[in-house]
């Protein structure tokens, strides 16, 4: 196995290098924040990043599956918005909250399944199919209602306001626990099951996977279904967070999710990457927002510029790594 020598760490397998780079970046940012601002270097700051980005984490997990097969899913932001919208509307009509959650998750999975089926059976590029899915989901949002609908169901409010104490004045929201559970399950599926192997194989080389007799079609359809399901679940977490359904929720979230996956070291051509990297990617994005809000004088649009810069650096790094490993 190819290895790279990193001072102080010793030799590590090359495939872990991108994740390590992201981890180091996260630690450096956290340390820099701790030195620069008072009250920054506490455990709660990291937990707050989780609390504020639980929905993004879930969405990014789904996106990781898709990108690992070499595809892309542009519809996630719209599906998140649609989920908040459907949930808010059904709750307003007095439906049971658990039934609502079930229906929303089902809608997300079915949308993903549909897109995956079109991508596989009709051999249309994922980019354009999920673009259509994006239009469809946003259009459906606005067809339901153009205004924001607030949620006052007691179960949803309960999810929003419950604090789970972790001791030492630290707490998390139930959404974080759900997100962490999703990450753990996804990591198990991706790294320890036959399906996970198929995902990597399909992304590595679809042709080879096909010749090896792997169920490429089923895998591809499944990853889009997973992404749709994760988006719907992310939508649920967002509606716990916002306590409203709105067609303009989560505009541009697909970009944040893709950025998190890329910063986490997953190759956009597919086949290489880890779920842990995606978690780190989401944490880095969240920490940027935290630092900018601590800085106070920097306006919110600097977030976008920093994310763009980070994307650039990491894509350049990916390029370097893949160029060197080919030699």
């Amino acid at each position, binding site marked *: 196995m190819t290895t790279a020598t990193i001072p102080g760490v010793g030799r590590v397998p090359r495939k872990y290098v991108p994740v390590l780079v992201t981890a180091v970046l996260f630690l450096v940012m956290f340390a820099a924040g701790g030195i620069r601002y008072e009250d920054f270097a506490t455990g709660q700051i990291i937990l707050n990043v989780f609390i504020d980005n639980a929905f993004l984490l879930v969405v990014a997990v789904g996106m990781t599956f898709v990108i690992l097969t070499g595809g892309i899913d542009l519809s996630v932001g719209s599906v998140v918005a649609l989920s908040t919208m459907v949930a808010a509307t059904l709750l307003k009509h007095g439906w049971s909250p658990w039934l609502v959650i079930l229906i929303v998750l089902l809608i997300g999975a079915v949308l993903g399944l549909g897109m995956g089926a079109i991508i596989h059976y009709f051999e249309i590029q994922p980019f354009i199919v999920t673009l259509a899915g994006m239009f469809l989901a946003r259009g459906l949002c606005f067809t339901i209602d153009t205004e924001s609908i607030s949620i006052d169901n007691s179960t949803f409010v309960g999810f929003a306001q419950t604090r789970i104490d972790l001791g030492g004045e630290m707490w998390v929201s139930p959404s974080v626990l759900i997100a962490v559970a999703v990450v753990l399950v996804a990591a198990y599926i991706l790294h320890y099951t036959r399906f996970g192997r198929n995902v990597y194989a399909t992304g590595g080389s679809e042709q080879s996977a096909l010749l090896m007799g792997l169920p490429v079609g089923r895998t591809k359809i499944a990853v889009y279904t997973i992404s749709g399901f994760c988006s719907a679940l992310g939508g649920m977490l967002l509606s716990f967070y916002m306590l409203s359904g709105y067609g303009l929720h989560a505009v541009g979230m697909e970009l944040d999710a893709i950025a998190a996956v890329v910063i986490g070291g997953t190759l956009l051509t597919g086949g290489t990457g880890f779920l842990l990297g995606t978690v780190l990617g989401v944490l880095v994005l969240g920490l940027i927002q935290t630092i900018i809000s601590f800085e106070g004088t920097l306006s919110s649009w600097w977030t976008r*510029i920093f994310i763009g810069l980070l994307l650039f650096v990491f894509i350049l790094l990916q*390029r370097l790594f893949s160029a060197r490993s080919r030699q």
Partner: protein
Amino acid sequence: MTPNLTAFLRHRLFWPVAILVGLLLLNLIFTDNFFHIEIKDGHLYGSLIDIFRFGAPLMLVAMGMTLVIATSGIDLSVGSVVAISGALACLQISELGDQNSTGGVLRAVGVALVLSLILGAWNGLLVAGIGIQPIIATLILMVAGRGLAQLITGGQIITVNSTSYKLIGGGYWLTLPFGIIIVAVVLLLTALLTRRLALGLLIESVGGNAEASRLAGIGSRAVLMTVYTFCALCAGIAGLMISSNVSSADGNNAGLWIELDAILAVVIGGTSLAGGRFSLSGTMLGALIIQTLTTTIYSIGVPPQTTLLFKALVVTIVCLLQSPAFRAKVFHRRRRPTGAPPVAEEKVSVTA
């Protein structure tokens, strides 16, 4: 079917034209005097003129996008370039002592366009120089660009009050809306450069197979740089039009989702996303279809927000029709009982 009719139906512009005509006829039912064009105060007025006028920015952006897609690339950053160019021009004009001075407005327009060129060259450098996938390379500017635009405007909406600047997007010249004239000039120049000179052939060959083109002695990198720069320039001009039409620059919302509309226009126009072949006239038709669709939805009285639903339907149908796999699976099976056509014929129709 007679051979002539078959050739007509198989023509690559047949479906776009048919959809456009269908949409226009639909309007005829819902809107009185839809096809009526009159001259008021020396300006042309009418619903058809409005479709052209409001569709002009999209036509420009889609034109640049066509060339990028022909090289089997894609440019996601056009929306951000639209916002940046409009923001920069409006910022400079708002700082002028006399906002109507032609020189000042020209300089503002010039600076905005030069910045657009630089942004395009940046995209081109990432794609051609470093070799990053186009989707990802332009994603960087798409994400950061909105931030840059807001940085320029300071997070505010900059309003200007300049009649000379208003001309670009909202003015008239020789009875025609000025925007239409700009589109016509850019289209003519592009058509001349790509169809009368070798550039079009080079673009198609790079899109068909970049490596083979390089071995054949074509400077693939220079070609790629050219198309990305051109695409950003088109987006820059479109940004000037959009901000000039409303006399203000909004870093957050100007040109939002125009990249998707532009890609949609290109795809409807019959340019394959796989690259290697493009049709400027098809793209123009595609952009007109999208604008007519928007106008139709307003005139029928359906809530305008549902435009996105219709767009989703149109993209899906067009892509399915263009997909060889879909044709083979759906049409082939249906035709077989009445005598299947030769396979070769199927292949010809794929290029539409």
